[in-house]
């Protein structure tokens, strides 16, 4: 049995339209997967069903051997931290400090430990000077950083990032990814929803959604070699590979090989 098993999952917000269609995904402990797909393909909806915020119409979700239902909801939630697409949906407190604390409070982290983690993770995302500010008075990227710090501080076994870095500048994003790589090496299971192909390539495996269904699922090295697959789902290869694909013909083998190789260099 896999660590996370999603089986025949379906979901509809309204009777008129089915959103998720027979989704099946197995994720092993310590895996890092990226979920890609066009706007409205169902990525955020899927993420919300995995954490039990939306109840599936059919199918099942099992996390670490526990089948998700009303009775097990709380214990499954303790294992998964999720950064929502819109950071405002995550803010409840008066100050940045409160907001970073919120997730930990739900996990009953002892007070002293909590204070330590707030300082540590606020610093990690470069927001240590903003702890007493109101979340509403932050810039877009600052809000995202605070939302991320709150989840990192929970130190859950699984983390879901739903376009969590879409408004970060490349340096802030790079710093954060370094930290996430470290956590991954220590065994964290990561589900990263993103439109940024460079970010997706940090994962080992790509899951591509299209119109509410799984369109492709496999090791990135395999999927990237199928350009039709990308074109068919509103995606784009990274610049270096688009360049490599244009260099057809003799004489370019070495350059092409190098470009492919460097696209996978982490």
């Amino acid at each position, binding site marked *: 049995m896999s660590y996370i098993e999603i089986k025949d999952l379906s979901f509809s*917000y309204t009777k008129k339209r089915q959103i998720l269609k027979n989704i099946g995904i197995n994720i092993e402990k310590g895996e890092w997967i990226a979920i890609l*797909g*066009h*706007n*409205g393909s169902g*990525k*955020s909806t899927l993420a919300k069903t995995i954490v039990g915020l939306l109840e599936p119409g059919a199918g099942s979700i099992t996390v670490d051997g526990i089948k998700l239902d009303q009775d097990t909801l709380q214990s499954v939630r303790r294992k998964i931290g999720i950064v929502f*697409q*819109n950071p*405002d949906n995550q803010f409840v407190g008066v100050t940045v400090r409160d907001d970073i604390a919120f997730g930990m409070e739900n996990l009953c982290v002892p007070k002293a430990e909590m204070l330590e983690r707030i300082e540590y993770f606020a610093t990690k995302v470069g927001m240590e000077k903003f702890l007493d500010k109101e979340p509403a*008075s*932050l*810039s*877009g*990227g*600052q809000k995202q*950083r605070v939302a991320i710090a709150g989840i990192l501080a929970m130190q859950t076994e699984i983390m879901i990032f739903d*376009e969590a870095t*879409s*408004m*970060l*500048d*490349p*340096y*802030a994003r790079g710093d954060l990814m370094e930290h996430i790589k470290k956590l991954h090496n220590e065994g964290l299971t990561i589900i990263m929803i993103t*439109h940024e*192909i460079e970010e997706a390539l940090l994962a080992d495996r790509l899951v591509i959604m299209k119109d509410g269904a799984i369109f492709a699922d496999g090791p990135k090295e395999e999927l990237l070699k199928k350009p039709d697959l990308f074109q068919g789902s*509103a*995606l*784009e290869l*990274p*610049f*270096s590979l*688009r*360049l490599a694909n*244009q*260099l057809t013909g003799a*004489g*370019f083998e*070495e*350059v092409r090989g*190098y*470009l492919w190789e*460097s696209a996978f260099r982490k």
Partner: protein
Amino acid sequence: MGIRFQEVSFHYPQNQLTYYQAIANITLDIESKNEFICLVGRTGSGKSTLAQHMNALLLPTSGTLEIFGTKITAKRDKKTNYNSLRKHVGLVFQFPEYQLFEETVEKDIMFGPLNFHTGIDEAKEIARETLKLVGLDESYLNRNPFNLSGGEKKRVAIAGILAFDPDILVLDEPTSGLDPRGKTQMMELFKEIQDKTGKSIIIITHDMDLVYEHASRVVVLYDGELIYDESPKALFKREGLEKYHLQYPSPIRVLKDLKERFDLDLDIYQRNLSDAVTALKRAVK
């Protein structure tokens, strides 16, 4: 003249005693026609704050601001018609949620045109057309804007501004949250609008590929100050942009790497994929 900033500074009040200076001494002229400006800078550098001055949503704490001939100063002036300024300058917010408020997508997009005295039938027609421009079909007209996916909300928010046809478009991260195809199409749409109407377009973004390919001018903020205002070509030829947390565009980064790795005689300053391909083919042959 479209928008003129003269030594504009802005402070957000913190509490009675302190304030936070978000932009400092900004001097900047934006023509009413044919500008394609990208406004860049790291997180918290003041981009959104500056953008919100462009249609007088925020008023300068000091300095003067002129928007289509109307002087804007720290004090809200009863004689100034702020609403009519917004007909000149349309602003799309960084978070679409701040902009969407009606119960249907159709009403949301119609709001601008109705506010500027377009008839109801015409406004409906406009809503239908602009929705199509941003890549959403008619079935979205009756949807509740709050029950859309992130990228769909972004598209509706952009449609809401295009609908009332402002002279200058200011777009705060219009492509964040869009899927790659949507991003390309959105940039093509902005280009097409400019080609047809000559409207000035100002885009805030962290995507330097987009800046390099599309902008004719790039304005860089760092800690609230304007540090560069020049062509992307001039900007990206500079060394050491890392200092300001700016990344070089992909073509430059990738070609630079190839040039060094294979010891090529190659001009790395190519603005897009096809130029990069041409240059590389020539260098390798």
